[in-house]
């Protein structure tokens, strides 16, 4: 079939391609690649989604880069109207290995046989825990601003958190980590989802603050570097 113009069906598919890409997050920065400016191009033709990704530096860690390209491929394959995916990373020292590995669904170890030592599950889990901690800190700060005392946080339930972007983010991170998202679930947990003694809350919250400063700072730094590297980008 040859298309000579973009029909409304294809326009709809393109919109869904962008929506799918918006579900792909940078695991370290915990923000969608679409908001970070990592999507250089995205189009659909004859059922093939063609996406080009780019990163703030030539030497961005290849494990994170791989995760994003692989996640993008998975998200795109799930879009109705997309039968084939051509997603590639540009301008990166390991682009060839990553692009080939993702296209062949070879896995991370398959893409870097000499240097990988397993897949990226542990890396992903580590950064999901960091993202959760940063979200926990933001939610707790709001509670403290509205009058809660730090020691009381040990007994706070999810139901005690008012509706807010902070609450929504936190619930999403908990779900990813397999923690309960029920109203009566304990808000303040350790990395495994277990309780934290009242006396330990302040210390853990203080560390969570350092995590939040770090994650936010990294994201701002990366966004800035990307703009410097690709000054003509309009998104």
């Amino acid at each position, binding site marked *: 079939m040859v298309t000579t113009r973009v029909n409304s069906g294809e326009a709809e598919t393109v919109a869904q391609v962008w929506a799918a890409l918006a579900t792909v997050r940078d695991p370290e920065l915990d923000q969608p690649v679409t908001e970070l400016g990592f999507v250089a191009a995205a189009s659909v033709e004859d059922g093939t989604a063609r996406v080009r990704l780019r990163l703030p530096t030539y030497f*961005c860690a290849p494990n994170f880069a791989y995760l994003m390209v692989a996640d993008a491929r998975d998200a795109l394959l799930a879009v109705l109207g997309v039968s084939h995916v051509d997603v590639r990373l540009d301008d990166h020292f390991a682009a060839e290995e990553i692009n080939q590995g993702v296209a062949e669904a070879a896995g991370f170890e398959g893409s870097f046989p000499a240097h990988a030592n397993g897949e990226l599950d542990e890396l992903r889990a580590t950064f999901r825990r960091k993202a959760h901690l940063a979200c926990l800190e933001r939610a707790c700060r709001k509670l403290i601003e509205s009058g809660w005392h730090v020691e009381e946080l040990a007994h706070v339930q999810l139901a005690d958190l008012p509706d807010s972007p902070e609450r929504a983010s936190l619930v999403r991170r908990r779900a990813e980590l397999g923690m309960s998202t029920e109203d009566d679930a304990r808000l303040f947990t350790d990395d495994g989802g277990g309780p934290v003694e009242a006396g330990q809350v302040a210390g853990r919250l203080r560390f969570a603050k350092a995590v939040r400063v770090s994650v936010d700072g990294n994201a701002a730094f990366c966004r800035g570097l990307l703009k410097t590297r690709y000054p003509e980008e309009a998104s």
Partner: protein
Amino acid sequence: MYTKDGENYFIVDSHTHFWDGSPANQANRYGKGFIECFYDYHRNLSPEEWVWTLEKFSKYSERDLLHDLFEVGYVDKAIFQPTYLSDFYVNGFNTTEQDGAVAERNPGKFIVNGAWDPRDGEAGLDKLEQLAQRWDLKGVKLYTAEWKGDSKGWKLTDPWSYRYLEKCEALGIKNIHIHKGPTIYPLNRDAFDVADVDDVATAFPNLTFIVEHVGLPRLEDFCWIATQEPNVLGGLAVVMPFIHSRPRYFAQVIGELLYWIGEDRITFASDYAIWQPKWLIEKFVDFQIPEDMQSEYGELTTDAKKKILGLNAAKLYDLEVPAEVAASSNGGAAVGSEPVSPAGVTA
């Protein structure tokens, strides 16, 4: 020396380079990618009037170096931290030998640091001994993420690394500067992981470990480790320029560092020529934690600035500090820090 409002600041630039990243010295696309990456850091975070062309940035002159550091840069002593990158550059990016030649032509201005790579094995230990004798080494700069043939990195906890650290102790090389960066073997591990610093800091209490750019992008992990290890310091290279582009973020980072490790364990650096000491120092001396953040982070005192700008590094390298620069206090102990001895003022 920098003087402002009647206060004198002794300046030790703990991180300077004299590199050759020019196309003629680039061995492959990685060499090209590396200097371009540095150049993007330079462009992204420098005030507009301080941005160089890529050509100048790739290879600047000794004249530039001396002018920027000592004539206009207020620097009293600069520490050359080598970056070999022999896999990327024909003659190395900035080697101890290159740095040393400049230092010998300008006596009293520079401290020359060395480097080692545990993957060099037994032969490397001998070379380190020779290097230490030739340059009177008191410090080394390590890149755990440096490539070497098929290897994309190493860990401080590798068995050969321990041998080299023992050798450093034996040779009187007390200061171990560590740079963490992208790509490290195995590739599925977090490339920036600073956890190996924890182990060696405990194993070598007589050595001092300076983690450059305070472990960014893993500030939180660095703080967590450093608060428990009194012989771990944080170097501010790469952090400093945020004082211009993101002063509130800079305030947060400095605030976190002061909380977790205190004013006695932080060192200033320009990372020249990525950024320039003149504007960094001027802005830092003028800098204060924003008022709305002071309830969280307190204030940055003049004494803290003096320590960070030079007195802390002076202690590490046994440098004589002019009497008119003395800090007036020892500073408060930070969470987990051991009590500190008086700031290094030698008569």
